[in-house]
Every structure is written in C-alpha cells, then in structure tokens.
C-alpha cells in the first residue's frame, strides 16, 4: 500500500499534454505543435518559457528525423514506433522523445549526450560556437547543435536510455526538463 500511496503522490498534478506514438512526418509535427499551442497549461506559461518548451519539442522531433533508424514502416509499427510526450507537473515541463536507432549509432549518441551533460552553460556556449561554425554537408545528419540547444534549456542532465529492440536495433529515449 505504501508503494501505491507514494506513487499517487508522485503522480499528483501530473498532466499529459502530448502523448504521441507513431511514425512522425513533417505534417504530423505541425499537428503536434498545434496541439501544444492549444494546451491551457502551455498558454499559462510566460513567453520565454513557452518558447523553451516549444523549441525543445521542435528539436526533439528534428532529432527523431535525424537519428531514427531507417526501418520499414511495418517493422516500425510492429516493434516500437517513435514517441513524443510532453508532461507538466506543478508548472515544470518535461519533453520525452523516443525512436529506434541502429546499434552502431549508440556510441555516437552516448558521446554527444554525455558531453553536453557534463558542461555548464559557458562550456555549452563555447561548444555551440565551435559546432555552428563548422561547415556541414548534406550527409551530416546533425552536428549536435540541437542537443546543445536543448542542454542550454534545462538545468538538469538530459536523461536517456537505450533498450535492445531486436536484431541490430535499440530503442533510444531521452527526457528533458525545461528550466524556468
């Protein structure tokens, strides 16, 4: 019983604003952003905080576009489709995103995430400058500018998990709590 009451305590005031699972196209991204813009919890925020939440949702979806493993739609549906969640608890917003990645992407992602998680804002800004000034090519699927931008919008670490999801594939999730 103790577990349940503690669980109830944790879940008190938790509101789910977006809970999406499925393939994400640019059009679906527009719908999700519109859904966010209509949410009363979102509209109650002061403008800069609103933009941080909005920006984190955009970057999270962009990350799914960039890193999602190129698996067949049917496989995606059968296994685990991409997901996006936006939750609010006592005025604090958390954005979670998940998608399948190829196993050989794990090391690169872990490196980028650990790198930003270890940095304070000054170091993040220096890294931002270094990355933004690098020439990117069409093949470059993201120098990590999105992750740096998201790391600047949280005062906590970006939490992430890798869960095996079939031959050669891993389900990657990350959670970002937006700073106020």
């Amino acid at each position, binding site marked *: 019983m103790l577990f349940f009451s503690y669980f109830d305590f944790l879940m008190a005031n938790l509101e789910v604003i977006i809970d999406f699972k499925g393939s994400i196209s*640019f059009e679906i991204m*527009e719908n999700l952003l519109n859904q966010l813009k209509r949410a009363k919890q979102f509209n109650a925020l*002061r*403008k*800069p905080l609103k*933009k*941080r939440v*909005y*920006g984190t949702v*955009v*970057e999270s979806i*962009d990350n799914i576009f960039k890193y999602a493993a190129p698996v067949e739609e049917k496989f995606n549906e059968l296994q685990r489709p991409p997901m996006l969640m936006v939750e609010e608890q006592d005025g604090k917003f958390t954005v979670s995103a998940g998608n399948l990645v190829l196993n050989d992407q794990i090391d690169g992602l872990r490196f980028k995430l650990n790198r930003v998680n270890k940095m304070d804002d000054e170091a993040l*800004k220096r890294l*931002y*400058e270094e990355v*933004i*000034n690098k020439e*990117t090519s*069409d093949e470059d699927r*993201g120098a990590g*500018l*999105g992750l*740096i*931008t998201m790391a600047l*919008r949280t005062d906590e670490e970006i939490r992430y998990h890798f869960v095996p999801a079939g031959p050669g594939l891993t389900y990657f999730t990350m959670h970002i709590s937006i700073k106020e």
Partner: protein
Amino acid sequence: MEKLIIEPTANSPRIVLDPEGRNFEFSGESRPENVRKFYLPVLEWLEAYTAAQQELNDDERTFGLQCQFNFEYFNSTSAKYILDIFKSLNAINALGIGLDIKWLYEEDDEDMLEVGQEMSRMSKLSFEYIIS
C-alpha cells in the same frame, strides 16, 4: 539587382531583400522542412549582391542598408544558416556599405536577446537590440 521576397508560412520566415528600398528584413518562425533548400537562394542572392557591389566604385555603391531581424523562433538548424547570413552581411559591410542591424526581441525573452548577442559576436557585426 532584383529584390528577393519570400512570403512567410507557419514554419518559414518572411524575407525581404530590397536593395533599392535599402531594406533587408527577416521575420517570423524558422523551422522549414528542408532548411538548406530554404536558405540557399537567400545566401546565393547575398553572394551575388556582394559581387555586384564589389564591381562598383565606392561612390556608386548603395549606402545605408536597414537590416531588421524579428524572429519569433528559429530551430538549431536554421541558426546555422542565419549565422551564414550574418557572415554574408559582414562581407557587404566590409565594402563600406553602412549596415544598420536591428535585432528585435520580446521584452522578457532573454533567450532571443542572448542568441542575438552571440550572433553579433560570432559575425563581428554590431547589432542594435530593440524590444518589439
């Protein structure tokens, strides 16, 4: 040179590059589906404009360009191209064409002010910061 006008959409900004009217303007939201494809014509236009101005004598060049940046939001991929635009503007400024760059932000939007300050520092151009 012909002016370039790009009308805004829900995910891409309005862009006006009008040398005759001495007005460059960027406003709205920037997270187009294909950021490179969206900004490439803008960067090419700026490159052609710089080349055309280089051909002119000092007294024939345009002087005093108003450049207004009034972004509501831009994603990190757009930021890369916006910095490239400032680098192009720096090349134009180096020709002695006086650029008056205004960076607009909403009153309590410290993030937008800060990113403007970073863009100014990285592109070595002076900005005037204005509350919109």
